[in-house]
């Protein structure tokens, strides 16, 4: 069965979605990510959707689910690289991805994860 690879980078997990996902593949990714967060004690998840040409309400819901699930597992999710035409379409569709943190590209997304990690640690002291 097809799977989207999940890479580990230190305390973060990196997912690059490069294929037009069918619904089952999106659900598998959701399951795989939660298991990997648990296995690796990851503190952040970065999802790169720069190759995605379409994000419909199903994929949008999956992104929201991943963000919520990782949050309750104490990991932050950042979605990066959304194409401008995808952003326009999503908002007109009525989906503004509430609860999902976004960044323009991978670099800024990593910064966001590192910063929120740093602030989180300060808060705990």
């Amino acid at each position, binding site marked *: 069965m097809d799977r989207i690879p999940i890479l580990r980078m230190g305390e973060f997990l990196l997912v690059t979605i490069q294929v*037009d*996902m*069918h*619904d*089952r593949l999106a659900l598998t990714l959701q399951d795989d990510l939660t298991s990997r967060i648990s296995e690796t004690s990851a503190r952040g998840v970065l999802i790169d959707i720069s190759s995605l*040409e*379409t*994000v*419909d*309400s*199903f994929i*949008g*819901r999956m992104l929201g689910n991943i963000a919520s699930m990782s949050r309750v597992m104490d990991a932050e999710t950042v979605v990066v690289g959304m*194409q*401008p*035409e*995808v952003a*326009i*379409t*999503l908002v*007109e*569709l*009525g*989906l503004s991805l509430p609860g999902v943190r976004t960044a323009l590209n991978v670099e800024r997304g990593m910064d966001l994860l590192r910063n929120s990690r740093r602030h989180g640690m300060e808060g705990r002291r």
Partner: protein
Amino acid sequence: MAVLKTELVPVDSEAHVVAVRQTVRAWAQELGFSLVDQTKIVTAASELARNTIKHGGGGKLTLEILNEGIRRGLRLIFEDTGPGIPDLSLAMKDGYTSGGGLGLGLGGSKRLVNDFHIESQVGLGTKVTIVRWK
């Protein structure tokens, strides 16, 4: 209004949603749609194809290239022979769902196209027609 080209695509299983997106994308590109317009009609088609499978139990999509005066458009007709929708205005409402989704499929896809028409008869099925003009 003339129909310049037409094609029939099955919409029976989940895998067909991806095929619908790819076929609609190819037709929108052929018509010279901008990237934003391509994305809008492909996304609307994706929502409607999923409805056809989940709520209609499968059906078909007819793609048509239209020519009206100097303008051209892409018409997509999704038809199923499923249970039909008893209350259309409720089904069109954002946030209303009978399938556990977000309830954005019908209302959302209407906002992504220029023309939107839905007919449904309980026990007979549902037909959704959308057009995006270039």
